[in-house]
């Protein structure tokens, strides 16, 4: 298990091993939703707010 820094509050976020690009991780400290931008090394960024739609 690796760690990365929360871009919102700076706290360490624990990352599981089978991390995938695009996955959304919740920061345990501030609750921010963080998107996995890269996996090796892990890079996190704030996950975009996206409106849910009623589909195509």
């Amino acid at each position, binding site marked *: 298990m690796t760690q990365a820094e929360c871009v919102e509050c700076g706290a360490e976020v624990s990352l599981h091993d089978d991390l*995938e690009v*695009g*996955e*959304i991780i919740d920061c345990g400290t501030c609750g921010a*939703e963080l*998107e996995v931008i890269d996996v090796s090394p892990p890079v996190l960024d704030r*996950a*975009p707010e*996206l409106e*849910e*739609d*009623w*589909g*195509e």
Partner: protein
Amino acid sequence: MAVSDADSEDPPVVVKVGGAKAVDPAGAIGDVADLVAAGRSVVVVHGGSTAVDDTLDRLGIEPEYVESASGVTGRFTDAETMEVFEMVMAGKLNTELVADLRSAGVDAVGLSGVDGGLLSGPRKSAVRVVEGGKKKIRRGDHSGKPESVNDDLLRGLTADGYVPVVSPPMAGRERDGGVTPVNTDADRAAAAIAGALDAELVLLTDVSGVYADPEDSETLIESVSTPAEFEALEDAAQGFMGKKVMAAEEALSGGSPLVVVADANADDPIVDALSGGG
């Protein structure tokens, strides 16, 4: 069902014909010809997702469906799928429907939502999905919903006696100002156009309407006129009919005086719908 909002004297009519199987409903084509002959302005909107799926299959491309956090399933439209979508919707189905209408004496002109920025809105390229229990951001989607309608283009064509025949895709606005063709729901497109033209909207489907109890054909909801009745209608709507109801709501709030969901397989489906028989 007929949702009545206001009286009006011969407003334009927007007719949404169904997907692939219902894209050439002889009854609807004859009805459009009759309405035009009677002096009504008519705009036809069509979809055709199942024809897109057929062509994806012939090309060996697997259609991808993704699930949202709230459990709604939607199509994910990557670049390759978008290309097929353009080919089938704006190429094959639109051209063939225009030819069928012209054979029936209707002076039809086909347009996609990209043409003249007819249906424009921001491109949605990232979607939140749930895959294997994980929340994810999927990028590279080609979808959007119309935030503006170029009603001047449609008014200009109908004033000159043409019947615009409109299909997805729509004009997706990129952050850099560029335009990308993107997938959009055809019912919603029809609703946006009806709202922009203050037009009556007829949504033709393979079924006859919304049923209070979908298992019981006696419980067809024929019309609603109060918010409470509308809420009961919403509760009753299920599956794809739910999208018809949301499209109806968007059209009415956009300015449409009347929305009818009607059976495409009737003899004179549009004329019957407009005379209240929907």
